[in-house]
């Protein structure tokens, strides 16, 4: 009898997994050099069907007002899921957004979203893009109605969640199954850190890493290359965008933005919240000579970060070791 009970228990927990056993099982894997994530799929069980639906929705341009823009239009895989060559996001009716699209990478470790940290849960972070007049320009009612009336969506929801019911919660949960699985932790840097397969830095990269640890990690902390805090790195005397204070209402947060990750930085140009810099050279020159005495400038940057030509080249060489080609080219994440 006890055996039967255990067998039944087992059946309870295994049921859903078995459905999609033939395909490659989608997993959320935590790289050995990463800490525990903030989002762990506790209330949103990761399944192949849920991930597949989320991915299809992510690349579905018909969700937008003029049927031209999907999440994937602004969050492009080859650009580390940011929008290549756009200073600020580019949405429906050729509308220019207010801010540079951030990359979607290692979101499961983030506790707040957007440049100003206004959004507090990964599951609700697509809502603003959906409803913003300048991004996808639509509303949830319209999207739900479209999905209910468009094959194969009702079937896909059934496969993913066991019912043809379609609502915003299930839409957001499936998109999250896709977005939270976007883990980048197989760059050369990661492999060196994990001492995998005898991979090591070149002497230039190593010199760059040492400089980086000395001058940059206080904000761009390993292994995410951000400490997730909000700071000003002195882009403008007076910021045109309120930044963090828009959310907190606190004057000392004016002009502060979340320290961005530097993973895949080689591919995520342009840089900064308003996309003002197109190259890493411009970014490094900013730290070297361009830091302005902004009202809330981070104290560490009072005198900028003096860097000579050799040091710049070394830091750049190191930053390129943060490129994760297995991530950028993973067909699992591509529009199919």
């Amino acid at each position: 009898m006890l055996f039967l009970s255990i067998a039944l228990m087992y059946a309870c927990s295994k049921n859903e997994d078995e459905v999609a056993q033939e395909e490659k099982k989608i997993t959320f894997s935590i790289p050995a050099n990463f800490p525990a994530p903030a989002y762990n799929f506790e209330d949103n069980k990761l399944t192949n069907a849920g991930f597949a639906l989320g991915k299809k929705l992510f690349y579905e341009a018909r969700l937008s007002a003029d049927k031209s823009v999907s999440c994937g239009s602004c969050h492009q895989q080859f650009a580390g899921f940011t929008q290549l060559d756009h200073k600020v996001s580019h949405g429906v009716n050729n509308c220019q957004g207010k801010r540079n699209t951030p990359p979607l990478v290692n979101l499961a470790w983030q506790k707040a979203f957007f440049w100003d940290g206004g959004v507090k849960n990964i599951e609700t972070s697509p809502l603003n893009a959906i409803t913003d007049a300048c991004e996808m320009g639509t509303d949830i009612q319209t999207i739900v109605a479209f999905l209910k009336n468009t094959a194969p969506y009702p079937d896909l929801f059934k496969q993913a969640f066991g019912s043809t019911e379609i609502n915003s919660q299930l839409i957001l949960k499936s998109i999250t199954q896709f977005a939270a699985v976007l883990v980048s932790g197989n760059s050369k840097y990661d492999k060196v850190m994990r001492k995998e397969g005898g991979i090591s830095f070149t002497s230039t990269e190593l010199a760059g890493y040492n400089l980086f640890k000395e001058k940059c990690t206080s904000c761009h902390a390993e292994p995410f290359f951000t400490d997730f805090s909000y700071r000003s790195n002195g882009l403008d005397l007076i910021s045109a965008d309120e930044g963090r204070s828009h959310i907190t209402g606190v004057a000392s947060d004016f002009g502060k933005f979340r320290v961005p990750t530097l993973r895949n930085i080689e591919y995520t140009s342009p840089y900064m919240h308003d996309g003002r810099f197109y190259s890493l050279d411009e970014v490094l020159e900013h730290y070297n000579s361009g830091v302005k005495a902004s009202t809330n400038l981070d104290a560490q940057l009072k005198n900028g970060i003096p860097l000579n030509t050799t040091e710049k080249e070394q830091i750049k060489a190191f930053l390129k070791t943060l490129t994760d080609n297995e991530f950028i080219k993973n067909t699992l994440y591509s529009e199919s």
Partner: protein
Amino acid sequence: MKISTYFLALLCPVILLSSCKKDAEEVTANTKSTFSIEFENQVNGSPLVLNTTSYKNAKGEDFKINVFKYYVSNIKLSKADGTTYLIPESYFLIDASKSESTNITFKDVPTGDYTKIEYTIGVDYARNFAGAQTGALDPINGMFWTWNSGYIFVKLEGTSPQSTADKNLLTFHIGGVTDPNNTIRTFATEINSANPLRVRADGKPNMHFIVNAAALFTGKTDVSFATLNFTMGGTNSVIVANNYANGLFRLDHIHN
């Protein structure tokens, strides 16, 4: 002995099976029954009529209301002996344009005489930052801020000739859960112990609340639409929340 062992053995997989279901209810020996709450929307004693009727605020300024919606959540009942019952998953959105939303029925409430009711005007801190929600908390209801996570607890939109905003609009979206601009307020009211809320197996009482929309604009601070006609969180929302914390709801009577 033998019988009970067999019985247990038979029961075992049943219990395990049912434990797979997430929302397994706690088993209580007490009997349960039903009661309901009706929220009657008014403005200073007159019925709330959207779009057409003109009302006056405490400063004597005219205004009309086009939208009036608010959350009531975490409803807790107390008995005279101090024991309490928190109605699980109690999140309700009352919308003056949807008459069915003004009447809420609660099932499976332990029977007894309740002498106090309290609830949150709005949504508790945790749910503001939680993942995707459904039902009353579904963002489809237009009560969720997408750029600064959190719910709009009370939404009043309308017009006033005194409003300096474009098209004389009034836009009061009250919400925000972090200090110093936390607008979560709790409403509590004692129930006359001579006529408590009698939840009985054979009795399904109804509580009747009067909701005064004009309470947003008076109480601690009388609001003039000439100076305050737009708020979406922040210090001005706190002024409005401090007003309605006491004046928005009044328990009118109970039908036992």
